[in-house]
């Protein structure tokens, strides 16, 4: 008996070690039942309280990812909307290989952006592999951004509305008079709209939208509002447009794919 006690005393640490490890092993082996046990329920309450506190911080840190998801959801919703607006248009039903919609929105993130140059360019993280090609429209949740210039496999460059080479047909929402939207290289907040005939009635604050003539953008994407206008050489207005899109703080955009663009251009080519 005494030898046994002495033995236990001698190896007490080893025994304790084995005992504690045994508990741990039992925990591991029973792991699958672990989730259901009462123990974990109690544990949840304590850790849950702590995690609640920390979650606020985590939420803030993941804002970027959340944002990204929201943009994607937005695109999905816009696609659905496009689908339904096709159905509502009872005069014709569009059937395209990619589905029953004409425009497809693809979310993209801006990886490079310049604002303070004369010839500003934007680079986005979607390219040919994602179906982004030359002459596709780019919009933000605020409104018009630009047109895709070139695309590589994974990236594409965009000419924004604030590039001196930019030209797009745009119209005044209330009167449907269409003109040419361009940029004078002055301020990234304003663009110009020319070739609106002098008999059009204008008011400061009128909304300018895309005309849809160019087969790049759908009809009615917001561009900006009239900030000031003057008659230029008697026949046409020269209008200063306050742009909706804030190019300085742009991060997420949508690329618009027009499935019927080829057809429209083909027809126009043949008619000419």
């Amino acid at each position: 008996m005494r030898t046994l006690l002495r033995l236990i005393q001698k190896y007490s640490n080893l025994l304790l070690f084995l005992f504690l490890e045994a508990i741990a092993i039992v925990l591991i082996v029973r792991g699958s039942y672990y989730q259901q046990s009462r123990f974990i329920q109690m544990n949840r309450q304590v850790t849950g309280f702590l995690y609640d506190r920390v979650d606020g911080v985590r939420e803030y840190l993941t804002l970027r990812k959340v944002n990204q998801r929201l943009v994607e959801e937005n695109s999905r919703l816009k696609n659905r909307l496009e689908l339904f607006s096709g159905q509502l248009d009872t005069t014709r039903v569009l059937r395209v290989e990619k589905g029953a919609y004409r425009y497809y929105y693809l979310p993209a993130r801006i990886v490079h952006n310049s604002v303070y140059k004369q010839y500003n360019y934007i680079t986005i993280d979607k390219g040919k592999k994602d179906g982004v090609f030359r002459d596709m429209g780019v919009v933000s949740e605020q409104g018009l951004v630009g047109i895709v210039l070139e695309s590589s496999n994974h990236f594409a460059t965009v000419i924004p509305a604030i590039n001196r080479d930019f030209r797009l047909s745009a119209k005044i929402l209330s009167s449907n008079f269409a003109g040419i939207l361009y940029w004078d290289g002055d301020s990234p907040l304003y663009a110009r709209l020319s070739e609106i005939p002098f008999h059009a009635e204008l008011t400061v604050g009128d909304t300018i939208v895309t005309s849809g003539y160019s087969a790049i953008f759908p009809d009615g994407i917001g561009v900006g509002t009239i900030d000031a206008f003057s008659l230029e050489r008697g026949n046409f207005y020269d209008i200063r447009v306050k742009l909706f899109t804030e190019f300085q703080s742009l991060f997420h955009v949508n690329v618009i794919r027009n499935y019927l663009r080829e057809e429209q251009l083909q027809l126009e080519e043949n008619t000419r």
Partner: protein
Amino acid sequence: MGIIARNIFRFIVLVLLQVLVLDNVMINGYMVPYVYLLFLLLMPFETPRWLQLVAGFLLGLSVDLFENTPGMHTAATVLVAFLRPHLLNLFAPRDGYEPETFPRVRYYGFYWFLKYTLAVVMIHHFALFYLEVFQLKDFFSTLLRVFLSSILSAATIVLSQFFVFRE
């Protein structure tokens, strides 16, 4: 602060730091720095062995509770707590550890601490990661994870000695 109070305080701070902050730091998707081992590393030399084992058990268990892992950290930390005195003997300077000192960079130098930390962390991670996969199928990819994570954990622990946990 008494030495016991200081250790208890360190225990709580390290566990909270681990589960609330560091567990959210995932490098490359699977490397987490396990800094909570610092508690075991810094326990005084004279701590009775049974207390080391119990402390290791509680430490692992607390981390397990927060991470919702069943017993893996417990098993690994108990193992490390059991082996720590042997490791300390192995790395002991020629004339042993002096009384009134602690296993810290300040007393025994950078290289000593690095060796000691690496050994403890490696053993811990080895046990932890293999218990986690619970099979030998992905033996080498797990081994790679053990090494990479060990380096990360050891580096974080050693660096913390110079900035945060100096006292």
